[in-house]
């Protein structure tokens, strides 16, 4: 059985860290306010959250590592929110100790670069974590939208039920399985490492941002050639946004690329699910069992 961390109660503490890129205090101020004033949690800021770093990263590798490690091990912290992604988790993940965390798991929250930590926790320790909006999503009244609100519901322990519109390329059907996935570039980069994703019998979801179409194709071939697409229970394709094309056009839209690659299988597939680098980004519990129903009229994903 997957280990599901305890859900949060009012007054519990959420630790905030920046394990990857730097984020200015002003950009996370609204998130901190909402977590505390509106949602009723205490907030504990890590040393990398709003640090004085002047580099790309929020701190040196050892500063980011020790900050995240302290949050994982701190008895007073009940969940850890990664304030932003960027790049950098890969550089510290092999240095993290999960000795205490395994016995006392807590929700790790984030997406994009945090994908690698989700995959690492699931593949090695079978602990559930939360793929969800991060601090910037709270800004400009974003916290009232249903996507940031889905994060709130998730940490409170409410069972999720999401729906989305059908897409012409969808393959209808029903699937039940543990949900895994995240950012395609990160999952491709982790293939063959200790953080490699396990997909057999699971519902896989993928999203990405800012990639070339040919590179999306290549990364999907990498997953396919590693046997990671053949035995899925189901496939959820989220947003693939801000994509680029080469001078000689690739000749296919991104969803057509994906559809071609999985056409030889028969599990249900849906396109355009709200998980992405845009506002449309529902909280998804990695490792938790879900039912995916891809119907002609509607797509439903429920815990």
């Amino acid at each position, binding site marked *: 059985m997957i280990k599901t961390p305890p859900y949060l109660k009012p007054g519990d503490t959420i630790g905030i860290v920046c394990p990857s*890129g730097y984020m200015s205090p002003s950009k996370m101020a609204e998130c901190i306010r909402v977590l505390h004033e509106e949602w009723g949690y205490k907030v504990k800021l890590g040393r990398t959250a709003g640090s004085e770093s002047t*580099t*790309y*990263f929020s701190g040196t590798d050892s500063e980011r590592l020790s900050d995240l490690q302290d949050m994982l091990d701190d008895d007073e912290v009940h969940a850890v929110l990664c304030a932003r992604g*960027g*790049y950098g988790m*890969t*550089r510290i993940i*092999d240095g993290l100790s999960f000795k205490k965390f395994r016995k006392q798991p807590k929700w790790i929250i984030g997406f994009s670069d945090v994908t690698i930590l989700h995959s690492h926790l699931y593949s090695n320790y079978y602990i559930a974590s939360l793929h969800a909006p991060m601090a910037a999503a709270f800004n400009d009244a974003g916290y009232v939208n249903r996507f940031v609100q889905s994060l709130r519901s998730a940490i409170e322990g409410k069972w999720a039920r999401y729906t989305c519109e059908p897409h012409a390329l969808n393959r209808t059907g029903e699937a039940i399985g543990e949900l895994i996935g995240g950012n395609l570039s990160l999952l*491709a*980069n*982790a*293939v*063959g*490492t*200790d*953080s*490699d994703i396990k997909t057999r019998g699971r519902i896989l979801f993928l999203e990405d941002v800012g990639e070339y179409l*040919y*590179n999306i*194709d*290549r*990364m999907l*071939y*990498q997953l396919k*050639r*590693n046997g990671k697409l053949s035995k899925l229970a189901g496939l959820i394709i989220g947003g693939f946004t801000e994509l680029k094309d*080469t001078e*000689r*056009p*690739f*000749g*296919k839209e991104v969803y057509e690329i994906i559809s071609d690659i999985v056409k030889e299988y028969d599990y249900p597939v849906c396109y355009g699910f709200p998980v992405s680098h845009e506002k449309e980004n529902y909280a998804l519990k990695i490792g938790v069992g879900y039912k995916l129903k891809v119907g002609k009229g509607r797509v439903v994903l429920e815990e």
Partner: protein
Amino acid sequence: MPSIPPYLKAGDTIGITSPAGYITLDEIRPSIALMESWGYQVRVGSTIGKRDFTFGGTDEERADDLQHMLDDRSVKAIMCARGGYGSVRIVDRLKWNMFSKQPKWVIGFSDITVLHSHINHNLGIATIHSKMCNSFPDDWAKADDPQKATIDSIRKALSGEKMRYEFASNPFNRAGSTMGALVGGNLKTLESLAGSSSNIVTKGKILFVEDTGEYLYSIDRMFWNLLRTGKLAQLAGLIIGGFKVKPSEDPAEEFGKNLQEIVLEKLKETDYPVCFDFPVGHQRNNFALKCGARHKLAVKADECSLMEII
């Protein structure tokens, strides 16, 4: 020991095919003329002039053309016309039984790294990493020295000359001398092969890597992939070729480490020789290398050399 395909003799045939991006016959004419001037015959594959958007024909067409070249006993070497993207889409369709019985030289770089790595890993047959048809000068008489020298290195490799390169030392180099079979190619492509049946095997070998158009953070992440998949732990030596880095779009997002620092920090637990600025990559100075063949790499304070050995 890797199997070395027969070197070419006068009158032998070189086949040209495009397993990745599309190219016209006009674009490869200079390469045909030059290879003919070397005393070889040239056979133009069915993918030349074919186009399926970015590709030199559909997956089927590209696989068929390459398969035909692999199986045709009268073709002694296969020159890939250009890179681009597409080799990984056809590599699992290819049958290697004829090729492994009667090996021949497969030539190219960049996206063709898929074929180098696949052939090296699965068949242990040497291949040539070099410029392709699209890099031959339009007019040989007017070509400058680096153009001539790099293209001529292909001729030398095919004719059986032992490869020998001397190149300037970089202050970041880690000195030493080592021997091993040469493997490598385009870093992004190698990363995308991790875990697959074309995965590169590096233990005891001299690894070379090059790349172009990638951000520093992405290059860093690719070296982490090599490190975390155990590919840097037991090398005989490491050769860093050309890396054309894509500048960060946002000055506030400067990565803060240069290429040399990115590489060397991954190698703290190793002590094999490392050199930077080897003339291989998406650049004018891109010399032919025999992947799979044994080489000696000598990295010294004043000068470096890479030499093919028996």
